[in-house]
C-alpha cells in the first residue's frame, strides 16, 4: 500500500473535529526527495497538515479538521509528484447526530392481515443511516419473553408484527429503538392488548329494498339496514348513525348508540320530501377499541307529506 489514512473516527457529530493521519511508505516516495503530503476535502486542498519523517523512513502527515460540518465528504491524502498531485488514499467522513428518542408510538391491529402495525415519529434528521426496531415483550412489567424484533425498512417509520408473534387478549410491552453510529435511543413503553387497538372498517349501510314486503316508509322517515364489517362479526360492537339534510350548511344529527346489526331500522323525525346524506360508524364495545371511519355517504330522499 502506497499510502494509508487512519481517522480518529469515521463518523462524528456535526461540528466536531476530526483528526486524520496519512502514512506514505518508502516505495511510493522517491528516495532522498522529500515529497510534500497534501490533503484534499472533496476537491478542495486543505491547509494545516503537519508532516514528519518517521524513524523507519516513512513520512506521515496529520491534519485536524476543527469543525467538520459536512454530513458526508471524501478526505484524500495526496503527494506532490513532479508537477502533478497523486492521490494515494481516500477516506469517507460522515457526520450527523445520534438519534432522538422516537415519540408518538401508536399501534393498530389490522383484522385483514391480523398483524399489529405500529408507527412513530422518528424525530429530527440524523444524516446518518439509522435503524428503527420495534422491541416487544410478552408482558409490560418484565423484559423477559421478548418477541422477535421488527426492523422497519429503510426510511420507514412503521413496522408490522406478524400474527404468529402475538398473544391476543394479553397485554404486551412495545418500545421502538433508534440506533446509528453515534448512539441508541429508546421510546417509552406502550402497554397494550392488540385486540384493544383494533381499527374497524366502516359498516355497510343500505336502505331497505322497497320491493321488500315490508310496509313503505312513513313521510319524514327512512328505512335502513346495516351490517358490521365482516372480519369483525365476532366482536360485539355499538354503532352511531349521523344524517344531514342537503340544505345549505345543515349540521349533522347523531343517532346512537345503535346495535351492530339490524335487519331493519326506521329513522323518523326527518323533513319530508328532502334529500338526506347518511353515514355510520362502529366501535368494539363494551371491550375497548377504535371507532371505524364513517361509512361512505348513503343519499336518500324522504317521501312527500300526504296532504291531510
Amino acid at each position, binding site marked *: *500500500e*502506497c*499510502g494509508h489514512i487512519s481517522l480518529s473516527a469515521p463518523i462524528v457529530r456535526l461540528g466536531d473535529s476530526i483528526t486524520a493521519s496519512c502514512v506514505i511508505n518508502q*516505495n*511510493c516516495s522517491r528516495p532522498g526527495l522529500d515529497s510534500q503530503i497534501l490533503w*484534499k476535502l*472533496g*476537491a478542495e486542498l486543505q491547509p494545516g497538515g503537519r508532516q514528519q519523517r518517521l524513524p523507519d523512513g516513512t513520512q506521515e502527515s496529520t491534519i485536524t479538521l476543527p469543525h467538520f460540518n459536512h454530513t458526508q465528504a*471524501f478526505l*484524500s491524502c*495526496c*503527494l506532490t*509528484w513532479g508537477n*502533478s*498531485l*497523486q*492521490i*494515494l*488514499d*481516500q*477516506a*469517507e467522513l460522515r457526520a450527523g447526530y445520534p438519534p432522538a428518542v422516537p415519540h408518538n408510538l401508536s399501534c393498530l391491529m389490522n383484522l385483514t392481515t391480523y398483524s399489529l402495525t405500529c408507527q412513530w415519529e422518528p424525530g429530527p434528521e440524523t444524516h446518518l443511516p439509522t435503524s428503527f426496531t420495534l422491541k416487544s415483550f410478552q408482558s409490560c412489567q418484565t423484559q423477559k419473553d421478548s418477541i422477535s424484533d421488527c426492523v422497519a425498512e429503510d426510511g420507514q417509520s412503521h413496522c408490522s408484527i406478524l400474527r404468529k408473534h402475538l398473544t391476543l387478549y394479553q397485554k404486551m410491552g412495545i418500545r421502538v429503538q433508534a440506533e446509528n453510529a453515534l448512539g441508541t435511543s429508546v421510546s417509552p413503553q406502550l402497554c397494550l392488548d392488540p385486540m384493544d387497538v383494533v381499527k374497524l372498517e366502516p359498516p355497510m349501510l343500505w336502505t331497505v329494498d322497497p320491493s321488500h314486503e315490508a310496509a313503505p316508509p312513513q313521510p319524514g322517515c327512512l328505512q335502513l339496514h346495516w351490517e358490521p364489517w365482516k372480519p369483525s362479526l365476532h366482536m360485539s360492537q355499538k354503532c352511531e348513525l349521523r344524517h344531514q339534510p342537503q340544505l345549505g350548511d345543515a349540521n349533522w344529527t347523531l343517532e346512537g348508540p345503535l346495535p351492530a346489526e339490524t335487519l331493519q331500522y326506521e329513522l323518523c323525525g326527518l323533513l319530508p320530501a328532502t334529500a338526506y346524506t347518511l353515514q355510520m360508524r362502529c366501535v368494539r364495545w363494551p371491550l375497548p377499541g377504535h371507532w371505524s371511519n364513517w361509512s361512505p355517504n348513503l343519499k336518500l330522499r324522504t317521501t312527500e307529506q300526504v296532504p291531510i
Partner: protein
Amino acid sequence: PLDPASSLPQSFLLKCLEQVRKIQSDGAALQEKLCATYKLCHPEELVLLGHSLGIPRTPLSGCPSQALQLTACLSQLHSGLFLYQGLLQALAGVSPELAPTVDMLQLDVANFATTVWQQMEDLGVAPALQPTQGTMPTFTSAFQRRAGGVLVTSHLQSFLKLAYRVLRYLAQP
C-alpha cells in the same frame, strides 16, 4: 498474413463497432459516477497508485493502419479485451452504487472478447487453447477498488479509441 480488408465479414466489423460504442458509453457512465460520487475525476492523479497496485496497460501495436497484420491485430485486440475483463472482475466488491455499472461494463467487454475470438476461430487463426487470466492486482480497500476503477476504465477507453479507429478503417467499403 491475411489481407486485412477482404477477409473480415462486414457484419463482424459492424457488430464490433456497435460493441465498442456500447462499451465506451458504459465506461463513460462509470467514470461519471466515480467523479460525481467520489471526486475521483482525473486518472493522472492516480498514476503513482496505479504503479504500486500493478495495474497493467496493453498495447494495440499490431494494428496501426500502415502495416496492419490482421492476425496479430485481432489477437492483440482479443488479449487486451480479455485482460480488461479480468481487471474489471478484480474490482468485484466495489460499492453497491457502482456495482451494476461495473457488471454491465465487464459483461459487455467479455462478450466483445467472445465476438473477436469467434471470428479468429472462423478464420482459423485462433490459438488452440483459450487464454488464461494472468495474476490480477489485488485491491485491499474500498478506495483502491474505486481508484482501480478509474484507472482501468481510463486505460480501456484509450484502448477502445484506437480499436475503433482500426475497425472503422477495416469497415470502409
